[in-house]
């Protein structure tokens, strides 16, 4: 048996062997470490925001600093953590293994993507300390403020542009890999659902990200050349910016959530010891979400000025996109029915995902309906909703995947009791933090403000306390994962009894994944 990829001798020794690696597993881990680092920064910023908002009239820092911090929290969490989070880290590591491939189709483009990602991230971080100071526009860079503010927008926007380029390259790379490098017998109908999800995500990345790139370039041209694309004072159209921004950024929500759904679809059958219910429906629903998700961006702009016809169509399409999401949730629940369920940590996180994502999804429908949206638009209801979807959905999905594939990636087991404890604390903290936002938002508390009226003191205090519980949960979770890198028990090649190909090689896998090319003779969730 070959040595694991950690021991494989590459072209360069030591740290260079990592940052110039072309092995998809090493690149996946590079992404994991870099995105998690950004996640920690984002969490710290989020905690200071919650502290600032603990009580009305109590101020830790100035309003300008508050604007900069919530912008930073959004930009880091969205662009630096969760968009590359699952596809680029877990996707990179696991997807080629699930295909039975030795690597991705273009290993050098793969490492180029990581370099672009890091360059973009470093540029954006540089923008905080240079020029006119940290950007203060919110992560959406709405016009006209973003072309008029004196803060260092151009550099930050260029950083995000590079990250977009990196995302597009990753998407192309994965699509080609899935089309070309499947092992013999790995037909489309035997593709694990996580890989199906990565496939659907790849198309979204390829189709949507260039729009972001164009939009951001236009902002830079507008700022440097004074051409009026978006700023009305120069003859531009600010609504055009909102359209172009959301044409990318709404599908980006699906870049975040579809891979997380893929993780859940892979975990549930393994821990229910039962084949997945409605394999084809889940695979097709990923593609359907990717397709419809591309056509619903207008629902972010119901109050921005659009014709009623446009608003009704966008609203209808928004309801339609809930259908494939619902299909998935019902299929997961049906897969558990009469299974012989083993409640291990990955399964717990998957259950957490289903619960939190359902709340996030259902509150999303309240916003998709025109009449209710007019009431809750721009309030904390929205903040609650997207944290349920993105944190409760995408990030819990990522945590589920991290626990599920941890033994495969690192060759060791984490402490099971601690992982469960972390889940319970995290789950309680999460709901205490974000649920009150639905209430204060419904009562009319506006988002993005530095201060609020005393009548909202109650829910905000509860939220802030929740943020501390949540932070504790995160601390236990990552303490467990990091500590087990050294102290964990050695993991077997297939600790959960999975049937997909990544479990048929050693933990951690050798340099080119399999000693010999696997032959696939059965479906991914066939346990007998």
């Amino acid at each position: 048996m070959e040595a694991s990829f950690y021991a494989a001798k590459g072209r360069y020794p030591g740290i260079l062997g990592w940052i110039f690696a072309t092995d998809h597993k090493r690149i996946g881990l590079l992404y994991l470490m870099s995105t998690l680092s950004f996640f920690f920064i984002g969490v710290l910023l989020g905690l200071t925001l919650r502290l600032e908002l603990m009580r009305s009239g109590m101020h830790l820092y100035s309003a300008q600093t508050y604007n900069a911090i919530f912008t930073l929290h959004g930009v880091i969490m969205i662009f630096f953590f969760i968009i590359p989070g699952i596809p680029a880290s877990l996707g990179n590591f696991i997807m080629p293994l699930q295909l039975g491939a030795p690597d991705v189709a273009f290993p050098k483009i793969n490492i180029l993507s990581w370099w672009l990602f890091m360059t973009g991230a470093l540029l954006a971080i540089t923008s905080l300390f240079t020029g006119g100071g940290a950007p203060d526009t919110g992560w959406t860079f709405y016009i006209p403020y973003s072309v008029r503010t004196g803060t260092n927008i151009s550099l930050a926007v260029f950083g995000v542009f590079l990250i977009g380029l990196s995302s597009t390259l990753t998407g192309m790379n994965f699509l080609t890999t899935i089309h070309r490098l499947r092992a013999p017998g790995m037909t489309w109908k035997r593709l694990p659902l996580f890989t199906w999800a990565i496939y659907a995500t790849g198309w979204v990345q390829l189709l949507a990200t260039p729009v972001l790139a164009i939009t951001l370039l236009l902002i830079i041209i507008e700022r440097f050349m004074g051409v009026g694309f978006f700023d009305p004072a120069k003859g531009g159209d600010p609504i055009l910016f909102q359209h172009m921004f959301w044409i990318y950024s709404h599908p980006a929500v699906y870049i975040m959530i579809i891979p997380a759904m893929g993780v859940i679809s892979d975990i549930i059958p393994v821990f229910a010891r039962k084949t997945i219910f409605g394999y084809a429906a889940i695979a097709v629903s990923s593609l359907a979400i990717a397709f419809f998700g591309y056509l619903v961006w207008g629902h972010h702009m119901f109050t921005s000025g659009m014709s009623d016809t446009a608003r009704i169509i966008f609203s209808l399409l928004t309801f339609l996109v809930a259908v494939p999401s619902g299909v998935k949730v019902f299929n997961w629940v049906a897969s558990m029915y009469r299974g012989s369920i083993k409640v291990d940590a990955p399964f717990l996180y998957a259950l957490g995902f289903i619960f939190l994502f359902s709340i996030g999804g259902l509150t999303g429908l309240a916003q998709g309906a025109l009449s209710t949206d007019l009431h809750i638009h721009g309030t904390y209801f929205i903040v609650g909703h997207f944290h349920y979807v993105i944190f409760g959905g995408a990030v819990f999905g990522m945590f589920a995947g991290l626990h599920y594939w941890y033994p495969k990636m690192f060759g060791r087991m984490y402490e099971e009791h601690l992982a469960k404890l972390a889940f319970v604390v995290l789950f309680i903290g999460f709901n205490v933090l974000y649920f009150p936002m639905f209430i204060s938002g419904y009562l009319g508390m506006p988002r993005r403000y530095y201060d609020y009226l005393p009548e909202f003191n109650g829910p905000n205090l509860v939220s802030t306390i929740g943020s501390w519980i949540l932070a504790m949960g995160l601390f236990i979770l990552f303490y467990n994962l990091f500590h087990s890198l050294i102290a964990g028990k050695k993991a077997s090649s297939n600790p959960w009894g999975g049937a997909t190909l990544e479990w048929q090689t050693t933990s951690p896998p050798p340099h080119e994944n399999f000693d010999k090319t696997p032959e696939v003779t059965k479906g991914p969730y066939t346990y007998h």
Partner: protein
Amino acid sequence: MQRIYLILFALAIASNGASGHESAAVKADIEIVEKLGQNIPSDAMFTDENGKKINLKNFIDKPTIVAPIYLECTHECPLLLSGLADVIGKLDLVKPGKDFQVIALSFDNQDTPKIAAEKKVNYIKLINKPFPPDAWKFLTGDEANIKKFTDSIGFKFQRDAEHEFSHPITLVVLAPSGKIIRYIEGTTFLPFELTMAITEAAQGRIGSPVRKALLYCFSYDPQKKSYVFNILQVTGIVMILFVGSFLAYLLISTKKKKGSF
């Protein structure tokens, strides 16, 4: 949608407003007959606000914005001039006195350099930014010279009373050679519009690479009377073609031999 109607409505009003006072006696022959590409006469003489005689054509040695107005006007002319002063304050890429100059030219032969000097002080103040006073001249002249000039730019107006005219509202942008490059109608202007017109009027003698790039990317649409940028549609189509051909490439071309690794 309502907002779009409002904008259209406002535009309609603005374009009506582009032709002088609405008095019953007029309507006959108040208009601009565009004479793009033609030259202004070489012998029209005017007097500037300091009382100095100048030959208009010789004076124009750089891209020049001419605003035909009359100084006693209480209606659109002040709007036009303050709109002009306002936009000049917003120009970043072109420098007054170096890249362009401005002339307010009175078509009322009863206007004098003295009134011109008074008006000039006010409008220079309105620019709200340091401005070289020599880059904006207020010219007056006699009837024959005025007619030579206004005929050459196709500017048709008529006197209604002692100090009252019916006349079109427009700026004329001239090249250093005296050639007519662009008409910009209305009383409010976009910095971009003016920058582009000045850049075109420079006729290739442009130093700034940014302005060269602008000239390359935008073209003037005479029907819409504005500068147009089509790249959004183009990139949209290019993107869909790109993604489509990538899918075709993945589906059609032969697969790598399985098991070859």
